[in-house]
C-alpha cells in the first residue's frame, strides 16, 4: 500500500513519500490539508449554528423555556473534561515532537480517558431526557412540558380556557391574515396551561424544536468525539510501536488539531445550549 520509493540522497526518511522533496514539505502539505479539513468541519457545524441562530432569534421563548431541562452542572463538567483532554492532547503532541515515548503514551491514554468520561456524562444526560420524553419533533412526549392538552381535562379544566393571554405572549407576531384560513389567535389553545410542575412558567408551543437542535448539535459533536477516540486509539497503537519522534510526528499533530477543534466547538455549544438566560 505504500508507494514505490526512490532514494533521495542521504536524508531519505522511511516516512517520506516518493513525490515529496523533503519531510518539511510533506509535513507542511499534511498540515495544510488538515487545516482545510478543519475548515470543512467548521462549516459543517456552521450550518447547525445557523439553524440554532434562526430559531433562537425567532422563537426566544422556546429556548428560554426548554434550556431549563438541561443540566448546567453536567454541561459545565463536560466542558472542564474536554479542556483537560485538550491539554493532554497538546502535551501529547509536545511529547511526540520531543520523542518522549512513555509520556506520549500516557498523554494519549489520558486524552482517551477524558473522552470516555465526556461520553459517559453525555450518556447520563441523554438518558434523563429519554426518560422524560424531552426529545425531538414527533418523539416529544414530555408531560412536564406538555401544555393543557394532556393534563387539563383530568385536573385543571378551567385553566385551559384562560389560555388566550398566554398564547399571545409566547407566539410569534401574528400576521394580519384573513379570518378563517387559520385559527385566530384566541385559539392558542392550552399554551399557558401546563400542569404547574415544570421548571418555570408556561410551556410555549413547539418546545421540541429546541430538543431537535440540541440532539442534532450534541449528537453530531458526540460522533466527532467518537471519531477522535478511534483516531487516538490508532495513535496509541502506533506509538506503542515507537513510530513517532522528532522526525515524524505528523499523525499526532494532525489528530491533535482535530481534537482541539472538537473541543473548540463544544466551547461554543456549551453556553449556547446550557447557559441561556
Amino acid at each position, binding site marked *: 500500500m505504500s508507494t514505490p520509493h526512490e532514494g533521495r540522497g542521504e536524508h531519505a526518511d522511511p516516512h517520506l513519500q516518493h513525490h515529496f522533496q523533503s519531510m518539511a514539505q510533506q509535513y507542511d502539505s499534511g498540515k495544510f490539508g488538515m487545516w482545510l479539513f478543519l*475548515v470543512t468541519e467548521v462549516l459543517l457545524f456552521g450550518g447547525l449554528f445557523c439553524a440554532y*441562530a434562526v430559531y433562537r432569534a425567532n422563537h426566544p421563548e422556546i429556548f428560554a423555556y426548554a434550556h431549563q431541562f438541561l443540566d448546567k452542572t453536567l454541561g459545565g463538567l463536560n466542558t472542564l473534561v474536554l479542556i483537560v483532554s485538550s491539554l493532554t492532547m*497538546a502535551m501529547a503532541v509536545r511529547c511526540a515532537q520531543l520523542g518522549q515515548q512513555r509520556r506520549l503514551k500516557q498523554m494519549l491514554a489520558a486524552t482517551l480517558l477524558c473522552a470516555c468520561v465526556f461520553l459517559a456524562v453525555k450518556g447520563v444526560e441523554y438518558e434523563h431526557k429519554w426518560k422524560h420524553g424531552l426529545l425531538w419533533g414527533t418523539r416529544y412526549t414530555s408531560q412536564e412540558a406538555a401544555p393543557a392538552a394532556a393534563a387539563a381535562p383530568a385536573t385543571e379544566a378551567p385553566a385551559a380556557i384562560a389560555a388566550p393571554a398566554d398564547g399571545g405572549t409566547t407566539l410569534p407576531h401574528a400576521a394580519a391574515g384573513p379570518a378563517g384560513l387559520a385559527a385566530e389567535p384566541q385559539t392558542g389553545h392550552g399554551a399557558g396551561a401546563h400542569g404547574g410542575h415544570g421548571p418555570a412558567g408556561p410551556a410555549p408551543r413547539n418546545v421540541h424544536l429546541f430538543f431537535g437542535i440540541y440532539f442534532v448539535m450534541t449528537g453530531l459533536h458526540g460522533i466527532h468525539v467518537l471519531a477522535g477516540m478511534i483516531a487516538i486509539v490508532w495513535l496509541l497503537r502506533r506509538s506503542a510501536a515507537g513510530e513517532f519522534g522528532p522526525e515524524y510526528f505528523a499523525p499526532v499533530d494532525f489528530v491533535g488539531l482535530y481534537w482541539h477543534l472538537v473541543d473548540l466547538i463544544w*466551547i*461554543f455549544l456549551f453556553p449556547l445550549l446550557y447557559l441561556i438566560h
Partner: protein
Amino acid sequence: MSKHQEGPAYAHVVPVRTLLGVFGALMFLTVLTYAVTYVDLGALNIWVALGIALVKGTLVALVFMHLLWDRKFYAVVLVSALLCVMIFIGIALLDSGQYQADLIPNFAPGITLRC
C-alpha cells in the same frame, strides 16, 4: 537529528508552562461563564457568554493548535471559514426575521395535540 530535547526542525515545540497557563485560563473562563449565568444581564447575557467562548476559542486555536507559531496562512484559512459561516448565519437571520410576520400563528399542531 537524534532524539534530543530540541525537537524537530520544521515545527515549533510549545513550552509546558505555556500549555499549563492556557489550561488555567480556560478553566477559569469556564467557571466564569458558568457563574455569570447567575447574574441577570438581560439581553447581554448571551453576548457575554459568546464573548467568553470566543476568548476561550482563540486561546485554544492560538496555543493548542499552534496558530501563533505556524504559517499565518492557516489563520487566514480559518478566519475566512468563520467569515463564510457568519455571512450564512447573518443573511439567514436577516431574512427569517423579516418574514416572521407572515407566519400563521398556531399553524403547527405539533406536539400539543398529540399528547
